[in-house]
């Protein structure tokens, strides 16, 4: 069972907006930056959001991140078929002194 809680799946139609949530506690999300990764099955994860809200170069501004308290969210607007993938959140946990991850959310467009 993953330390961070994500919904197993979300879905939307092209053009719609979807939000993926990530819930933790004070020792992880409450005290450290959240990062989001996109993973196509069979390939390596790739960062889409870091430091809660920052987009790496090449990531479209349709993707945005936010954080409040012990929860974070990834929002994808103007859904496109190529957005279909698994998305997971990650952050540092001060109690573990290591990385913790969400269970991943499968986005279906």
């Amino acid at each position, binding site marked *: 069972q993953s330390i961070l809680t994500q919904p197993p799946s979300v879905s939307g139609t092209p053009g719609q907006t979807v939000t993926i949530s990530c819930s933790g506690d004070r020792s992880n999300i409450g005290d450290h930056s959240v990062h989001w990764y996109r993973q196509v099955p069979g390939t*390596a994860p790739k960062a889409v959001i870091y430091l809660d809200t920052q987009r790496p170069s090449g990531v479209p501004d349709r993707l945005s991140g936010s954080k409040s308290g012990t929860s974070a969210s990834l929002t994808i607007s103007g859904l496109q078929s190529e957005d279909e993938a698994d998305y997971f959140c990650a952050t540092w946990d001060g109690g*573990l002194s*290591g*990385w913790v*991850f969400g269970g991943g959310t499968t986005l279906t467009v």
Partner: protein
Amino acid sequence: QVQLQESGPGQLKPSETLALTCHISGAFISSSYWTWVRQSPGKGLEWIGSVFSSGSLSYNPSFQPRVTFLIDIPKNQITLTLVSMTLGDSAVYYCARDSGPSGLTDWGQGVQVTVSS
């Protein structure tokens, strides 16, 4: 551009020892932090441990005392050793560049490890 390449055996028997190597190119191993993560359908993503630029090591207590990292600076690679493998250790093992507060910024392609009798 930093590139990471994991290599090692794809199949092991229970009780055997896993040795995986992460070769790093595009950056000196001593210039950054490096982290091992594994991913399995049943357990999701799990942090195995991290190597810091100072050379210090940090392991997930869930993997101790079975896990060891060995840093080879001349070869610019890190070897992960996990002893007493069980069926539950079957997973895809990744190494990643750990940029601290900025997250795990670069990942290797991963290596599938299957434990089966």
